[in-house]
C-alpha cells in the first residue's frame, strides 16, 4: 500500500492562562491509501486533536505532518485550505449541515469547490438519500443527516475521510447504516477512511486499529478479517 499521510513526533499543548494541557506527546502515525482505520481511545486521550491536526484544521505545537512530501505543520493557511479542499473529507458527530440548504444543495456546496467532484446525484444514491434530496436538515433524522454529511465529504472526491465519532449521536440501527456507507466509500471508491471513536466494537471493521492513551499511541494492530458493519457489537 502507498503511504498517504505521515505524522511524526506530533506534540500539541493547549495553554489556558497558566494552565498547560499536553494533548499529544510526540505521537507518530502513518495512514496508507485505501485503508479503513479506527482510532480508539477514552475521552481526553487526544484522538480528536490528532484527527484535527491530520485534517489541517488545527496546528501541532511541534512535530511534522507530511502529505505528498510537504510538512503541513509548517504550511501557510493558503496551502492548508487547498489541502482540505482537495484531499480531506471531514465527518463530524453532529453533522454540521447547512440548515438553510437542502440535502442536495449541501452536497452541491462541496462539489462546487472541488477540482474533480463526484456527481451529486450519484452521491445521493450512494447514501440512499435520493428521495430526500430536496429536504432541509431539520426535516431529516440524525442518521439521514449523517449520511448527507458523508456524501458531502465524499462529493469532493478527497483522498481520505476523517470521521470524528460519526456514530456517536446515533442509535444502533442508524449507526450501522452510517458505517455501511463509510465502508462502501472505502471499498468501492478506494478512499482512506479514518474513524475515531470510543466504541471498541467498531474496531472490528477496521483494517488497522490504533489505540491512543494520554496523547501517545498505546497499541496498534491489524485485522486480518475485518467484519461487516452489521456484525459490529454496540
Amino acid at each position, binding site marked *: 500500500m502507498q503511504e498517504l499521510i505521515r505524522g511524526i513526533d506530533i506534540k500539541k499543548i493547549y495553554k489556558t492562562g497558566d494552565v498547560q494541557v499536553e494533548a499529544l506527546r510526540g505521537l507518530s502515525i502513518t495512514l496508507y491509501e485505501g485503508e479503513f482505520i479506527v482510532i480508539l481511545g477514552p475521552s481526553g486521550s487526544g484522538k*480528536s486533536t490528532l484527527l*484535527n491536526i491530520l*485534517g489541517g*484544521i*488545527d496546528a501541532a505545537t511541534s512535530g511534522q505532518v507530511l502529505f505528498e512530501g510537504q510538512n503541513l505543520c509548517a504550511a501557510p*493557511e*493558503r496551502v492548508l*485550505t*487547498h*489541502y*482540505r*479542499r*482537495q484531499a*480531506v473529507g*471531514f465527518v*463530524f*458527530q*453532529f453533522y*454540521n*449541515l*447547512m*440548515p*438553510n*440548504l437542502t440535502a442536495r*444543495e*449541501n452536497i*452541491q*456546496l*462541496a462539489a*462546487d*469547490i*472541488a477540482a474533480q467532484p463526484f456527481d451529486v446525484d450519484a452521491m445521493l444514491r450512494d447514501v440512499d438519500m435520493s428521495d430526500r434530496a430536496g429536504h*432541509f436538515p*431539520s*426535516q431529516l433524522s440524525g442518521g439521514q443527516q449523517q449520511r448527507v454529511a458523508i456524501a*458531502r465529504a465524499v462529493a*469532493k472526491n478527497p483522498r481520505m475521510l476523517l470521521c*470524528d465519532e460519526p456514530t456517536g*449521536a446515533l442509535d444502533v440501527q442508524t449507526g450501522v447504516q452510517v458505517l455501511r456507507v463509510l465502508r462502501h466509500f472505502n471499498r468501492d471508491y478506494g478512499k482512506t477512511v479514518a474513524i475515531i471513536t470510543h466504541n471498541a466494537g467498531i474496531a472490528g471493521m477496521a483494517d488497522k486499529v490504533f489505540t491512543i492513551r494520554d496523547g501517545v499511541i498505546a497499541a496498534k494492530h491489524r485485522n486480518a478479517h475485518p467484519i461487516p458493519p452489521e456484525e459490529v457489537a454496540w
Partner: protein
Amino acid sequence: MPTLLKKALRDVRQRLGAYLACAMLMAIGVLFYGAMTQVAANMPVAMQAFYSEYRFADAFATLHALPASRLKRLTAVEGVEAVSGRLTATAKVLGDTREDTTGLRLISYDPAEQNRLNDVLITEGLPLNAGSYAMLLTEGFYRANGLTPGNTLTLAFRGRKLSFTVAGAVQTPEYIYITPEGSIMPDNKNFGVAYVPLDILEGLLNAGGARNDVSIRFKPGYTFRQLERSLIDALSPGGLTRLYAREDQASHSMLRLELQGIETMVSVLPVLFLLLGAMVMSVVIKRMVEQQHAQIGLMKAFGYSGRAILRHYAVYGILVGLMASIMGGVLGALTAGYIADMYASYFVMPGISGTFSFARVAQLSLLALAFGAGASLYGARGVLRRTAAMAMRPATPEGGNKPILLERLQPLWRRFSATAKLSLRNLFRSRSRSLLTWLGLSICYALTAAVFAFSPMIEYMMQENFTEVQRYDYRIGLVNIADTRQLEQTLLSMRPVALAEAIAELPLQLRAGAISKDTALLALPEDATLYRLFDDARQPVALPRAGVVLTYRMARELGVAVGDTLLLDISYPDTEVPAVVGALCEQYTSSYVLCNRSYLSSLLHGRQFATGAMIKLAPHATGAETERLAQRLNEAENVASVADVAQMQQNMHELIQTSMGTLYAMAVMAIFACFAIVYNAGVVILSERTRELASMRVLGFTLNETSRVVAFEQLALIAAGILLGLPFTGATMEALANSMASDTYAIPADVPFSSHITSVLAMFGAWLAALLVMRRKVAKTKMADVLKGQD
C-alpha cells in the same frame, strides 16, 4: 453582586463590539441633545432677557420725516407705552481698495435720551458724546474688521467724505442677526450698523428735528393688530412708508426661525438615533436569546419565571443605555461650547452659552435607558412563550422550511451558487431581523444623503441666484428717486457699463381677503435681461404686461392662484390698488412681488421713477476700469448703496465653508450609524453562522469565499436599504426645506445626484469596513472547537 448581573456583564464583555456599536448609535442621540439642549434652552431665555432689558420695540415705522411734535403725540395713542424717534441713513465705507463696497446703516443715537427703545449694550469702548464724529459699531462688523476704539473709518455719505472715530462695539436686540440688502446670511465683514450722535446725523441729513424711523412699545395686553389703525393715523402725516410688527422685523423673525429649527433638531434627532440604536439592540438581543436557548431552558427548569428571565435580558439594554449616556454625555460636554460659539457668531446677543447641563442630559439618559430596556424586552419577548423543554431545543427558523419567494422563480434561483442560496434563504427567513436592519439602513442612507445634499443645495441656490436670476454685476440703491431713462443714460455713460436697467423697489402690503402680508415690490423693465424669473421646473417665466408675479410660497400663504385678484397697498406714494396674479415664480433668496415698470407706472397714474438700477459691465472690462466705476458709484451723492454681486457671491461661499464643520460632523455621525448597523448585522449573521462558516472552511472554502457569505447577505441588505432610502431622502429633504423656508429665502428640496453617489459610497465604505472586521473574526474562528459541539 447578583449572579445574573454577573452573567449579563460577562455576556456584554464577550460581545463588546456589538453592544458598543448599539451604545454609540444611542450616544449620538445623547450627544446631540447634550450639545444642543443648553443652547436651545438658553437662547429663548437670553433673547427675552435682552429684549426686555434693552427695550426691544413692538412695532417699527419708516417714514419720510415726522416732526418732533407729532412724535410726542404718538405717546398719547391708547396702548402705546413708549416711543423712540431716530434718523437712519446708509453710507459706504471707503476701504483700502477703491472697489470695496462695504456698507453701513447709520442710526442716530441721542446720548441724552432716557429709556430709549432698542437700546444698545456697549461691549467694548465708550458711550458716544454729542457733537463728536464718533460711532459705535455692531459687534459682528467691529470684530470681523479687526477694529479697536480709536480707529478711523472714512465714509462716503451723499457725495461727501466723512471721517468717524470708532468709539466701540455694541449689541442690540434690533440687530441680533444682521444681513445686508439682498442677502440671506450675515456678512459681518462688509455690512454692519453704526450708531452716530443724533446731532451729527441730524446735521448731515438737514433733518431739522424730524425723524424718519420710529420704534413703538406697547402697554401690556395690547397687540399690533389692535393698534395698527391708530398708529397709521398718527404716523401718516410724516409720510409713512412702512409700519410693521416685531414679528416681521428681520432680526427677530430670523432668530425665531432658528429657535424653531433648534427646537426641532433637539426633539427629533436624538430620538431618531435612540430609535436606531434600539432597533439594532433588539436584533442583537434576539440573536443572543436564540443562542442562549439552552441556558434559558435550564433557568426555567430551575424555577426562574419567564418574567424574571425577561428582566435579566432587560439589564443588557440598561447597560447599553448607560454606556450611551456616559459616552454621549462626555462628548456632549466637550462639544457644547463649540456649538454655543457657532450660534454666538451668527446671533450677536449676550447670554448664549453652551454650559453643559447634567440635569438635562440625565433626562435623555433616562430615555436612553428606557429605549435600551425596551429594545431588550422586545428582542427577548420570545422567552415568555417557550416552556423549559421547548427552550432547551434550538428555535425553528422564522420562516420554517418553506421556500422563499425567489425560489419560485426557478430559472433565476438555479443561477445562484449554493453560497448565494445560503445567504438569500437566511435573509428571507430571519424576517424581523432583516426588516429592522433594512429600515435602519434606509434611515441612515436618507440621513447621509440629506446631510451631503445640504452643501451642494446651498451652492446650487447661490449659483442659480447669482448667475441665472440676478445677471448683473452691480446693483445700486438711490437716496432719492430718479427718472428711469435719465438714470439709465447716466449709468451707460460710465465706462465700463455695458447695460443698465432701472428698477423700482417699494415696500408693499399684499391683501387677499383677511390675509395680509408685508413684502416688497420690485418693478423691472418689461424686457429685463439682468433679472430673470423661473418657475419651479426652472423654466423661464415672462414678466406679464399687467399684473404681478408672486412666489409659490407667497401664493400658498395668501391662498391665491394665477388669475386671482389681490389688493396692493403701496406705501409710497400711498396707493391702494387691485392687481391680478399674472404668474408664479420660484425665488430662493428673496420674496419680491414682481411686475414690470410700465405696469407700476399705470398703477401710480403715470408716475415713472427708479429707486435703483442693475448694472452689467462690458465683458472685457479691465480691473482698473471696474475699480474706477465702483469708486464713482460709492462717491455719488444720490447713491445710497452699491452691491457687488461677485463679492457677495464670494462672501456667501466663504460663509458656507465656515459652516461646513457642523455638516461634516453630522455626515460622520450618519456614516458611523451606517457602519454600526452593518457591523451589528454582520455580528449577528456571524453568530448565527459560526458553525456553517466553520464547516465551509473545513470543506476547503478559502477565507474570502467563506466571508463572501456574510458579505453577500449584508450587501443585499444595503442594496435594499439604498432603494428604500431613496424615497426617505426625498421626504427628509422636503421636510428640511419646509422647516427652513422663510419669507427671506426658500431652499430647493431637490437632492443632487452627487449626494446620492456620496451616500452610496458611504454605505459601501461602511460595508467594507464592517467586512474587514467580520473577515478577521471568521479567520480567528477555531474550526475544530466550533464543529465539535452541538448547537
